[in-house]
């Protein structure tokens, strides 16, 4: 990460720019992130978004993969309960998130590094808030020790 980026935003951990992967479902959360874009309100640049059609597509292995490839945090964003474009993929995602959290703890990775939340297509502001909070949380935790 380059120094310009860090100097622009005075975060608590001045020298730490976390790497966060965000899995966003196409219909609600990705659209919510687009909405946040339309609002043109800056948010921290540390989350790279990977689009999946449904949060139910997010295999726990993707999360582990992200951590093993150097991510300090992962967020999974889904449609709100009852709003899933695919009816119930978000419930699957929620269940898998629980399992993944257990896995992470077994691996000694703080569960706070994985965040699951619901963001609808209209919730640009919520998306921004989730990103800000996730970045804040990961900054407080510091870099994941990749050994």
């Amino acid at each position: 990460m380059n120094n310009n980026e860090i100097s622009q935003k005075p975060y608590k951990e001045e020298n730490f720019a976390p790497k966060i992967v965000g899995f966003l479902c196409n219909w609600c959360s990705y659209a919510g992130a687009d909405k946040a874009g339309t609002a043109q309100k800056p948010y921290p640049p540390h989350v790279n978004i990977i689009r999946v059609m449904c949060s139910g597509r997010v295999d726990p292995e993707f999360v582990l993969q992200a951590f093993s490839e150097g991510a300090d945090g992962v967020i999974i964003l889904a449609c709100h309960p009852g709003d899933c474009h695919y009816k119930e993929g978000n419930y699957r995602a929620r269940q898998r998130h629980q399992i993944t959290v257990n896995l992470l703890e077994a691996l000694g990775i703080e569960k706070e590094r994985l965040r699951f939340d619901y963001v609808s297509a209209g919730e640009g502001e919520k998306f921004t808030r989730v990103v800000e909070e996730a970045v804040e949380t990961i900054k407080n935790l510091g870099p994941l020790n990749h050994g």
Partner: protein
Amino acid sequence: MKTGVYFCNCSGNISGQVNSETIKDNLQSRHSGAYFKTCELLCSEEGINFLEEDLKENAPDRVLVMACSPRDHENTFMNALKRAGINPYYLQMVNIREHVAWVTPDGDTATQKTIRCLEGALQRVLLHEPLEMKQVEASLETLVIGAGPAGLSAALKLAEAGRKVTLVEKTPFIGGMPVRYEEIFPHLECGPCMLEGMMDRILHNDFPGSIELLTMAEVTEVVGSYGNFTARIKQYPRFVEEKNCLGCDLCVEACPVTTPNEFNLGMGEKKAISPPLPGALPYVPYLDPKACLRWKEEECSLCQETCLVEGAINFEQTETTVERNAGAIILATGFSLYPTEKLGQLGYEKVNSVYHSLEFERIAAENGPTEGQIITREGSFPQKVAIVHCAGSLEEEHAAYCSGVCCAYALKFNLMINKKLPETEIVHFFKELTLPGAEDYELYKRVKDNPLTSFIRYHSSSDLFISEKEGRPALQYVDQQGATGNIELDMVILCPPMVPGKDTVRLANLLEVTRGSNGFLEALHGKMEATQSNVKGIFIAGACQSPKDIKAATTDGASAAGNILSALVEGRKLDISPVAAEINRDICSGCKVCLSICPFKAVSFDEENKTSQVNELLCQGCGTCAAACPSGAARGKHFTDRQITAEIKGVLRNE
């Protein structure tokens, strides 16, 4: 591999924040097989022409478009690839407008974030596969189940557009519940009259298409899927040939047997051969074998002997099964009432002259058991009537929802009683008064100032207790403020909530259509896809999916018909998106996890090979099976494990 990277300036929206030169340098230092081009506005006519021509000239193996959200222009650019002779699924978009340029505080940071996004997309696109849209022929015919307002409306709209419809109705007549109502809220029009125009057109096939009406019939089996369903329909014998019958009723007069009339809910009687209700359409009597002497091994053919048309009454008719094809199915199976006897405190079936709302509709109907006279079980005009709204609604142990229409019809009952018995006192017991919309509140305004009408708000059905006192109902209550009271009455009308009927449940199971927490058929999306079920090609209309009034039911029917007319079009095949799941049979272990989690019933099990298989027509491409498959046999095309993993690695790659 040659990758074409096209950077859209978006007229400064992107280039004002992201430095394309830095991106270009970075790309070329890492990927020798990639070339980089910029364009001022790639989605403009000029931009698309540039892209198309440049793709033709350079003939890249893969294409990245760094621009806006794929939700905006992915199709635009996929079409450009297609025109340039490149498989459109070789495209990957990099959303650097909404997700970078517009939301990143400064240029350098934005440029660095863009590099990470680009690297992810680049790693991913290298693994893209050429996918093809498939097409299948589809039947333009529709199967409509249920001939109430929703089903009639749907059938008529489809037939008006020239479509062939098979309309299946389980009772001997069409029109559903409203033809049993004397008057309809909010304007107190005659129910059968309101529907008559629609019913006449259906019976006379008065449109370019055709409607085959099968009464006394039920769908027993459905195979196939969207575009090509085949349904088996069992039709019970009416013993009267519809095409021959004149509707003169001579057979009815001749019949020596009377039996309780189920369409008057057991109140009043009918003959063993009889129209279900006076005026029911088609106006053809039906013979009830449970009542007819011939089925009791007695000699009787009085009806046949009296009949003016030879062969109109046919004792030899038997149950038949027919098969019909359909591209789509509409479930319009209506509602039942919550079983009132479960509300023990309210005295139904225990206390004299306690009726539920459908019974009262029949009592108030001119063609009902009392010929429209509002009278108690003893035959006297009631001086004092209680109407209990929300009887079982809004209560967890009964029906945890508001049935929506009861307040309006309860107030309709009030006006109907006022008209026939202007001296009768009416007390409404209600939990909530629900009269939304442009017109229904008018009903309340019309009754509230009548000194003979009063309203008492109660909290729970357990706060009401109806017992019998000297042959009449007496109602003890605790109101919402805790005050108690005791009223002696002549008649009680209970308004229980609508619930899905047992045929709705049976068909939901048969067709694998999901039901929501309250048991009604569930819409794919309650707001945006309100008449589409979870199964593609199966639509749900009317009160089988939620308590609804007639207006909502006919609107649903028209909506379902509209969806079908737009989806199944003459001369157009059905597109099957290749972004679907597939199962690698060589590694499928046959555990069936995918079957249990697919929300669209798109996965079935091949018993012969003991492996799962995906119906691409039904698959919506969510990929939840791919995430769940323990052996890695289920694969989400265009969102494969390898592609997503490559993107993860790409975005995390260290500079």
